[in-house]
């Protein structure tokens, strides 16, 4: 492990250790926070007895649908905006201010439109992720070196082959970043939406445990979400690093 990695790990261990000590020593009341070891033990129990399996499956399905929609719609919209500069100039201010819009305010409307099912939740997740993907796609296509497109012309490649064999791989690092952001944003959107407009899922279960003063379950679920998102991000980060190292980007 690198020195930076060791320091990072040490920092996390110290923080967790300090919280554990503070909880065990009575510095923090168990009504506020329970010791991390108790969170982990209870999470293990919940995973073993299958109490939260259905919630995990539901939340992950919602996130997956939101990510697939955000990445595919975001990519297509980004490519269209890149190819139509006038439309892009017109839309640019909306993209720049997009994340200032509080989507959760629209949840009653989404329920009216889609009904009380997973669709409003997936829509919120999608709305959170899609613009990150649009912006990354436009950035990636903007940064294709013109000389690569000239090379494609010299090799007699038509627009479709140029798009698939030159533009797509050239823009791939930005598309990867867009996908990574879309996953992170969709997670935030879905979990938060489950808090307020769902009767199942991890977000709902956390809210339910909170309202029932069930601190052990609430913190165990929060720990699970942190571990899951960290794991997904770590895998994507390592994959990205491997690609970037090869490409020298």
């Amino acid at each position, binding site marked *: 492990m690198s020195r930076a990695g060791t320091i990072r790990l040490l920092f996390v261990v110290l923080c967790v250790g300090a919280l554990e000590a503070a909880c065990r020593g009575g510095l923090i009341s168990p009504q506020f926070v329970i010791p991390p070891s108790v969170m982990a033990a209870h999470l293990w129990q919940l995973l073993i007895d299958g109490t939260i399996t259905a919630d995990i499956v539901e939340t992950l399905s919602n996130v997956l649908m939101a990510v697939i929609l955000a990445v595919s719609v975001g990519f297509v919209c980004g490519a269209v905006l890149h190819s139509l500069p006038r439309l892009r100039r017109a839309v640019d201010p909306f993209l720049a201010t997009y994340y200032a819009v509080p989507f959760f305010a629209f949840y009653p409307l989404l329920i009216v439109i889609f009904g009380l099912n997973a669709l409003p939740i997936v829509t919120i997740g999608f709305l959170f992720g899609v613009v990150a993907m649009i912006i990354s796609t436009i950035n990636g296509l903007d940064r294709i*070196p013109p*000389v*690569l497109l*000239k*090379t494609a*012309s*010299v*090799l*007699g*490649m038509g627009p479709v*082959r140029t798009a698939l*064999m*030159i533009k797509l*791989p*050239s823009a*791939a690092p930005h598309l990867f970043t867009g996908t990574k952001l879309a996953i992170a944003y969709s997670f935030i959107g879905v979990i938060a939406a489950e808090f307020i407009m769902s009767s199942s899922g991890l977000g709902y279960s956390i809210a339910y445990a909170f309202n029932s003063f069930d601190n052990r379950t609430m913190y165990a679920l929060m720990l699970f979400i942190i571990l899951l998102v960290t794991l997904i991000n770590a895998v994507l980060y390592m994959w990205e690093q491997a690609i970037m190292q*090869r*490409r*020298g*980007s």
Partner: protein
Amino acid sequence: MAASVVKMSADRSVSTPMLHAEMTGVTRIYAAKGKTPGVHALGPVDLALRQGEFFSVVGPSGCGKSTLLDVLAGLSSPTEGKVVFEGAPVTGSVPPGIGVVFQENAAFPWLSVKDNIAFGLRREGTDPAEVERRVGYALGFMGLEDFAAAYPSQLSGGMRQRVCIARTLVMQPRLILLDEPFGALDAQTRLLMGDELLKLWRETGATVMLITHALDEAAMLSDRIAVMSARPGRIMEELETGWPKERDSRIASEDHFGQITSRLWKRLREESIKATARGGA
């Protein structure tokens, strides 16, 4: 303005050559766009490339050298005039048989050296055994055998340019256009790359047109050199160097080399001052 033709060596006779590519009355004017005014970048230019010769174009910065190459290659259309390659007009696309090497790094960063070189052949659907044979030859010719599995980011600027030359070489072009391919390299590497370019030219028998701002490079490599004026680029003079076909960078120490470069500089000095005054350099 008619270009004058100067022979720097009267004792070496030149046989009547076949024309390979020709530009007649070519101009390129970039139309005004919004607040950006239109630019008359090139011409009118008349140019005839002889079959199998090494032809260079020198000129001050911003004089339209690269525009000239783009128009000849079919990468951009002339505003006026005609371009002909092997008897057929060049219109709107790059005809088969023309290969181009650019100054910028054009190696695909997501492919290994070997896959970069094989890219064009595979795209054409060339038989895999033939791809292997030609790529193997190009790797050897350009001294890239040990780097076949490496990625462009792992190579120096000179090595990356070799990859691009090799990628052009495997397509067996009959006309190779080089747009300041060694512009980003240091002086020693440029001399050595020049030697390799001469070797490539002799082995392939292709016609080569090199765009460069380096007078010594043009003087060392070329059979003929066209000198361009400041923008809008016109050909002021064509100069025959009279070098033998078998030559390498050692000719840079000959008196004749000095005569060629001083002749080129004499014609270019005023034009370079004009270009600098315009902010072209």
